């Protein structure tokens, strides 16, 4: 029984990270049909923002030593500025192009950002010690759970509530939802395209910053490709959840996290390194049975 609780919390914590990442990708997909591969690099750069830029093998914390509220604000600011700059310089010029052109643009941007980070920080992974206190376990119903996992789940729930309120209750949030339904119609009714898209990128940037802090606190490692596995699973989560649905992205994120943890538990030890193979295979199976994803969105059916 205690074992089951442990597994459930592991699954929820991992699912939370995937859900936040998938949500960051889903928000932008909603307003401009862009699948942002560079989202993983936003996460990665959020992590690198903590340290002093150098090629040194050991990282020196810079923003990382600040008090938590200031630290979160500073990292969010860096990632939001990066997201806005990407939108302005790379994505706006190709905005009216086909979704596949947008996707490949984000791929190019991702390649650019990764190699820029390698040039500034060097290609080797670096150890950082962010908030070591969070790895201490607390006792919950007889199970030792790291505080970080509780924090991850709590932060995710709070952000989801905020996001729902933002999308349903604020004018700009309503405009964003209108834009994801039908961008052209929304514009005709006075929604300003540049503003809505910029806000979507900013919110997505905040989500990326939060994910990068949670991730760095957990793994303690910075590397230029740390965002890649995350973004791959988040992509898959958006497809499994149903492209274009934010609820679907969250659901898909949790589903992928839960399936990963379940495979981690049930697979024989020899097979565990191959866990991701099973997760990807499972996803292909879901798509075979339900090609539209868990939540079907009508306005997304692709048209020429």
């Amino acid at each position, binding site marked *: 029984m205690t074992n089951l609780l442990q597994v459930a919390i592991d699954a929820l914590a991992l699912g939370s990270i995937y859900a936040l990442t998938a949500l960051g990708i889903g928000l932008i997909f909603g307003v401009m*049909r862009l*699948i942002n591969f560079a989202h993983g690099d936003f996460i990665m750069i959020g992590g690198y923002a903590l340290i002093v830029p150098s090629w040194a093998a050991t990282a020196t914390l810079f923003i990382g030593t600040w008090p938590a509220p200031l630290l979160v604000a500073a990292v969010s600011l860096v990632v939001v500025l990066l997201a806005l700059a990407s939108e302005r310089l*790379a994505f706006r*010029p*190709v905005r009216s*192009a086909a*979704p*596949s*052109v947008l*996707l*490949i*643009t984000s*791929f*190019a*941007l991702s*390649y*650019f950002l990764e*190699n*820029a980070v*390698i*040039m500034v920080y060097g290609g080797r992974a670096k150890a950082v010690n962010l908030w070591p206190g969070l790895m201490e376990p607390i006792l919950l119903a007889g199970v030792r759970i790291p505080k970080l996992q509780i924090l991850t789940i709590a932060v995710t729930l709070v952000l989801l509530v905020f996001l729902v309120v933002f999308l349903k209750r604020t004018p700009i949030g309503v405009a964003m939802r209108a834009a994801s339904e039908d961008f052209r119609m929304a514009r005709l009714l006075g929604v300003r395209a540049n503003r809505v898209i910029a806000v979507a990128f900013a919110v997505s940037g905040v989500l990326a910053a939060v994910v990068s802090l949670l991730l760095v606190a957990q793994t303690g490692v910075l590397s230029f*490709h740390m965002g*890649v*596995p995350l973004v*791959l699973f988040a*992509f*898959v989560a*958006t*497809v499994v959840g149903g*492209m274009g649905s934010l609820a679907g992205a969250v659901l898909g994120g949790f589903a992928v996290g839960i399936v990963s943890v379940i495979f981690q538990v049930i697979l024989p030890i020899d097979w565990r*390194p*191959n866990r*991701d*193979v099973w997760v*990807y*295979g499972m*996803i*292909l*199976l879901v*798509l*075979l049975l339900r*090609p539209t*994803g868990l939540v079907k969105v009508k306005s997304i*059916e*692709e*048209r*020429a």
Partner: protein
Amino acid sequence: MDSLRPTRIVQAIWTPLVLTVALTSFVAVIAATGDGVLARTVTDALIRMVLVIGLYIFIGNSGVLSFGHIAFTMIGAYATAWFTLPVLRKSIALQLPAFLAESQLPMIPSAIASAALASLVALVVGVPIMRLGGIAASIATLAVLGMFYTFYTNWAAWTMGAATLPGIPIYVNMWVALGWVVVAAFVAFAYQQSRFGLALRASREDEFAARASGINIWAQRLIAFVLSAFFLAIGGVLQAHFLGSIAVKNFWLALTFVSVAMLIVGGQGSLTGAVTGTAVVSIIVEVLRQFEVGIDFRGTLIQVPLGTRELGIALVMLLILIFRPRGITMGREIQWPFHSRQPLTERPPRDAHVSPISSLD
């Protein structure tokens, strides 16, 4: 038999023929210089060209991006290692089943068998993926790459896991690579002119109209996917027998990105684009590499920091996407240039359909 007249045949295969002649003369010039380093660079570029033509067969004709194709390159590279490694070396490095461990295939049959294996895998994973819409299919192919990458990294008995697998017989040079480029170009062209290629291109232009005309898009995409996997695997086979060693980590996102970038830069809509893009990007990369090493310009060493090459490719790609989203060739092929020599009587009369409106301007 009008269709068998020599000029008709030349005209029908004009695009791959021009590409072949151009590439062959280029390779002949490089061979004549006797520069071994340059020859290796060109061989590398020609192997990439096989990959990009393979990508073109699927992406170009279907309009669906695929980020998973490098999985087939990896499958091809490892398969040919299983087939052609000397028996003694195999027994030391890998734990293969008896039928593989105790045999050694000649090079060409091994290449064909490896590529056929990749095609078979493409058929199996393609069945569910081709049911998806464009973007979802692209992401699902990425999942396929992730799946095989993880699997091969951990499948130590067959792949030596994360370590490099050495000792693969080396036989690929510029001419062998060129030969496969030519084969790939002619097959890609034949496919795109066939009824299957035509049906798939129709679905790329207008999915709903194509469906209404009775085209089974799923089946057409699947055919292209399987054919395309064949040449991506051939690229992997060539890579393995060119370098003599392979490692799983070389078949991941960097190679995916560079090969897709080559196709997009050249223009994903045409075979000419695939070839042009590979050539242009290879030249840019080589020039930037020279600058990274340092160039002596009248006594002063001009050098750019390491990593400029990668930033350069990404930047070129972004600029092409922004200013010329359909690539250098804009999806056009090299055209038969002699149409004006046709007798005038075969042309429709020029002024037959001039409407009053068009005559105003």
